[in-house]
Every structure is written in C-alpha cells, then in structure tokens.
C-alpha cells in the first residue's frame, strides 16, 4: 500500500498542487471580492449573481459558442475530408500529408499575425484573390459581421493535428471489412457511411471533445488579431479574453474566478453531453 502510494506520489502531488488546489482556490475566490493585492472578502454568490446581469458575460459567451461551434464543426469536416483524401494510395502522399500538417506546427502567435496580414481589407492576399474572380471581399477583421468567421477560418487552417489522428484511425480500419462490403456491392458513399465512419467513431468523438475544450478556451488569436477589447464592437470578445481583462486588467480576480468556474462547468457539461450522446453513435467493438 505504502509502496504503491510512494510510487504514485509524484503524480498525486502534481495533481493536488497544480490541479485540485488551484480549482478549489479559484472556487473559494469566486465567492470573494478579491483584487489579488488585498485579502479576499467573502461575498457569497454575489459574483455569480452579477454575472447573470453582465452584458459582456453573455456577449463573450455568445461569441465563444459561435466560434467553438463553427471552428469545431468545420475543423472536423475539413480534417476528416483531408484524412480520407490522404489515406488513398497516390504518388507523393507523404509530401501532401506533411504539407497539410505543417500549419498546425505554426505557433498561434505567428499564425495570427500572418492571417492578420492576409485578412487586410485592402491589398490583403485573400481579398486580392477574391477580386480576381470578381468578388469584393469584406474588411474581414474590421467588420463586426465577419471578424468571428475570419477567426474560424484560421482555426480550420490549423486542423492538421486532427487530420493526423483521423488518418491513424482510418488506417486502423480492417481491410477485410472493406473487402466484404465491396463483395456485397457497396459503393464509395455506402462504405464511408456504413464502414468507415462507424469504425472511426471513437476518433471523431475524441476530436469533438478536444475541439470543444479548445474552442471554448480561444484567447490568443483574438488578443493578437483584434486587441483586448475584442474589436470590432466586441465581435471577437471571447470568454477567456473577457476573463483575462476582468482578472488581470481590472484586478477583479474574484469575479474572474467565478467566470472561470462557469466556463469549467460549461465545458464539463458539454463533454458530459457529448459522452452521453456518444453511446448512440460511437462503436468501440471490433
């Protein structure tokens, strides 16, 4: 018993010191008026009640949900399509795989700055290309109607990680199943719907959950591309950006902790829902 505990102690200590304690401390501070510089004063659930009436809380939650939904959905579809294409036996497939994976290696800060230049409303590469085909592109990041969508497109560009995971999943599908389905006369779409997707459903589920978690924590891209105010007109004021503003700029760490806990509960609930729903469509048995 003791030997076992001592061997697992590095993990136990790590979990307690870097996860459980911060979680518990954040919950305690969320019940306090706490500026970091002064001792916390207990205020009960005041911070949570104030959140309900805070326009920017709802605005940032809406922005984040919009982004997460768009980015997760589009990324999964794109990554899966790419993985299906790159799973075929064509010449130079490794080069293509590398090319599509490369963007995901780009640090978020560098990628954000690159896309910021590409999104320039006048003279940016995207609008220049669009103009060649007769389309007048918007002023992407400066237009409240387009700013979130622009950040979603950028997220899809970095879908290389999910693509690799899908690719691994695809290569794990037994060829016997495809052979059997071909003998039974199944076409491409039937094989995709009835063999490929059910067989890689655990991978889709994994990417979905990880995508939701990452999507709700979007922060750096907005801070770099559109500033801490979530410009234009708070269209890119993401939840974590607002949390950062409240905690580190306004020194309201108690309120920020309440926001952090609400985010934690939202992600927990979404993950739980995805897990419950997954029982209907994820197949682990081979």
């Amino acid at each position, binding site marked *: 018993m*003791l030997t076992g505990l001592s061997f697992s102690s590095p993990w136990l200590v790590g979990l307690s010191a870097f996860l459980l304690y911060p979680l518990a401390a954040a919950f305690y501070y969320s019940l306090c008026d706490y500026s970091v510089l002064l001792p916390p004063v207990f205020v009960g659930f005041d911070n949570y009640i104030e959140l309900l009436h805070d326009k920017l809380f709802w605005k940032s939650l809406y922005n984040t949900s919009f982004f997460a939904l768009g980015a997760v959905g589009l990324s999964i579809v794109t990554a899966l399509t790419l993985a299906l294409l790159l799973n075929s036996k064509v010449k130079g497939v490794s080069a293509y795989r590398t090319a599509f994976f490369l963007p995901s290696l780009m640090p978020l800060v560098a990628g954000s700055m690159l896309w910021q230049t590409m999104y320039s409303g*006048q003279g940016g590469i995207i609008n220049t290309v669009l103009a060649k085909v007769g389309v007048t592109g918007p002023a992407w990041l400066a*237009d409240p109607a387009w700013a979130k969508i622009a950040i979603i497109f950028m997220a899809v560009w970095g879908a290389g990680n999910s693509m690799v995971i899908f690719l691994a999943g695809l290569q794990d599908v037994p060829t016997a199943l495809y052979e059997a389905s071909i003998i039974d006369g199944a076409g491409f779409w039937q094989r995709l719907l009835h063999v490929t997707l059910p067989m890689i459903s655990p991978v889709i589920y994994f990417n979905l959950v990880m995508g939701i978690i990452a999507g709700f924590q979007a922060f750096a891209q907005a801070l770099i591309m559109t500033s801490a105010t979530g410009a234009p007109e708070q269209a890119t004021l993401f939840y974590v950006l607002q949390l950062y503003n409240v905690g580190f700029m306004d020194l309201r760490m108690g309120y920020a902790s309440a926001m952090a806990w609400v985010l934690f509960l939202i992600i927990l609930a979404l993950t739980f829902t995805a897990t419950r729903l997954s029982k209907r469509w994820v197949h682990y048995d081979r």
Partner: protein
Amino acid sequence: MRLALVVCALLLLCCSCGRSRTEPSAGPRHVVYWEKWTDFEGEAMARVVDGFNAAERARATAEPGYRPIEVEMVVVSSIEQKLLIACAGGNPPDVAGIYSTMTAAYADKGALTDLTELARTSGLVRANYVGRYYDLGVHRGKLWGLPTAPASVALHWNKRLFREAGLDPEQPPETLEQLDAMAEKLTKWEVTLSNGEKQIRFGYQRDVPVAQKRLLQVGFLPSEPIWWAHGWGFVFGGKLLEGDRITIASPENVRAYRWMASYSQALGVDAVRRFRSAFGSFASAQNPFLSGQLAMEIQGVWMFNFIKKFADGMQWGAAPFPAPADHPELRGAASAEADLLAIPTGAAHPSEAWAFIRYVQQQAVMEQLCLGQRKASPLAVVSEQFYAQHPNPNISLFAELGASPNAWAAPKTGVWNEYNRELVTAVHKIANLTLTPEQALGEVQRRIQVSYDRDRAIYQKRLP
C-alpha cells in the same frame, strides 16, 4: 521507510523554495529595480543606474564603513500584470518604474508605499516639478510615485503631402474647421471609371459610388490612433470624470464624438474599414503616418523616434492640436502622462529604494535620463543645454503642451482600464455608425458609473 524518505524530500524541496530574507551584514545593499522600457529608453535608464552605483561606490571609498547601495535594473515587460503577481506573491521589486495610469488602482489596493513624508523630508515638493506631472503620483491626497520621463501629444503633419495637395506645408490648422477642410483636400482616391480607366482624385468624392473608389490617402482620421479614443472629448472641453460622476455622455463629449462620426459619413464606413485594415503595426514602416497614408495625426513626443527609425528624411511638423472655432481657448488639449518611480508595498529595502528615487530627481540626472529617452523633463527648472542638445526639434512644444492648462491625464480611478476598453468599443460603434454618439456614450456612462461606484464602495469599506 520509503514514504518517510519521499516526505523528507518534499519538505526539503518546500523549504528551499522559500526566499531567503537574511541580509549579509557586509558588502553592498542590493536594490532590485524593475524597468519597463527596452531599446534606447531602457539604455538611458541603465546609464542612470550605472551613475548611481558609481556614486555609491565612490562614497563607500570616501567613507570607510559605509555600505554602498547597488541597484540592479531588471527589464520587465507587461509590468502592470507582473508587478501585480509579484506583490501578491510577497516578492516585489524594491523600486518599480510604473505608468502614471497605474497609480490609482495600485494605491487603492495598498500595493504602493506612501512616499508623502519621505518626499517632504527630502525637500522634494510640488514646486520642484511641472505641477501636472507631480500630481500624477498623487492620489487621495498622498504621494505614491515621483515622475521621470513625461509624454504629451500634439498634431503631427506630413509636409510633403501638404505640398502635394496645394496646402502651405508650414501652416498647420489652428481650428478644427480648418483641420476638417484641410483633411478633405488631403484625401486621395483611386477612382475607376465606367470604361475601366483609373483616375487619382482628391477630396471626399461623395458623388462616386463606393464600388468605384478606393482610398489611397486620408487627410485625417479621428479613429486613428485608436488608443486616443478617450481623448477627443477634451478637445471640445469635455471631461471623463468630475468628482464621483462619470461624464462621458456630457454635451461636450457628445459633440466631440459627433464630429468624429462626421468623418465616417464623409468617407464611408466600409471604405474606412478597408483602408484601416491595411495599416501595419505602429512600430513599423507600414505605420499609416510613416508610410504617407495619413497626412495628419495626433501623436506623442515618441513619434519623432519612429520617424527617425522608419521614415528618416520625412518632412514633418508638430503643432498644438486645434480647437473648435467657438472655443479658441481649448487649443492644445493634450494628454500629459509620465513614468513614475514607486516603491511597492513589501519591498525588502524601502529606504535604499528611496535613495535611488531621490537620486533620479536631481536636475542633472533627470535631464540625462529624459535626453536619453528623448522626452521633455518633468522638472520645473530645465537647463538651456537640455533643449540645445535634444534630438527632437519640437521638444519645447511638447514641454509647453504638457505644462499648459489644457493638458489632462486619465482619471485616477481603479476602473480606468475598464472605462478605456468600453470607450474603445464605443468609438468603434460610433465610427461604424452602428450607434449614435448619444447611444454609445450613454451606454458607457451607465456601465462605468456602476463599476466606479462599486470600486469606490469597496475602497471605502476597507479604509483603516
């Protein structure tokens, strides 16, 4: 046994993590100074620190038994956040070079040492300074920091673009009406005619459909630079805070932001969006003023350094910012902020830290620092040599603007950051014509008054 070993190892680790506060009884007294500037500004401060350390060593040689103070300068980025964490962790630097806009939030939360008595006994009084700069360190009647390099703002204009537009390059606007008229003449479009021919035209080109014109150059844009979002009201005599009242929706402020919206109406919201989104970052040759896309702009004393670095040879001028014709007395409204030297609460060596701050306040040292940082001096007495040696040809103007009765500083409140963010958003809504100035400013006033009252209530509850 094994568990005991693990526990012992962890205890040892925990013990070694604590910072040893035991002072050696011999050798120099170590003072840690956090500086926020890098590049030439940081180097100028490093020379001041070297001068202080050399003076201390010389004193130790002359006075046997005297333990000299040795200042170690550490360059720290994002000082607003890092100082917060350091103070909360009980391990702050001895001296911090803060922004004047941080004073209220940090002082109210007990993170700064009250310097009132120290300054009084050292003979450092308000009369030694340009009063406005000294006041930046004063909050609720107490002194929390002393100024170093100050910064004020002025209208900058590009003389080449003035000449090209047929304007006198030596004659900047004196009233807002003149500025508006000049801005129109300085605005340049590429117009595509129905036969596909492209023409360059000056003026606002209101009759040309949006799809047929593209902005190449703008005379003036009130939404540029966006950090000035909070400053326009002062040009019209508005204020951001009066007593305990947030006054952003006052008639003067509404008039200011209505003037701002007039530019969006004249140029077109979408054209401005596209034009602005092509601007490069401030510290680059693609900065709109440096690249000649913007003919006039309100900018600070620092702009000279960026002109030298990215657009050397540019013909430019600086002048007091114009006022509305019906309020000529408001000409030269300028924000006047400064860097401050402060001692965080819990600093290990407060008296040594004060010795360093006092050293920097000497006229010769302050002039060395401000000359190196290419700014004006915050002191009341400035040598002729300072102006003669200063690389910025307009430095006297910036000094005058900082000291003028029309100079102003950000309101001293713990909610200033939130107020400023809300204003930036309001300015976007006004410039995009999404909301009228009355609606946008009214919303900011309502929200910030609530935050202000809450912040004040918390502070008052905690007053000893």
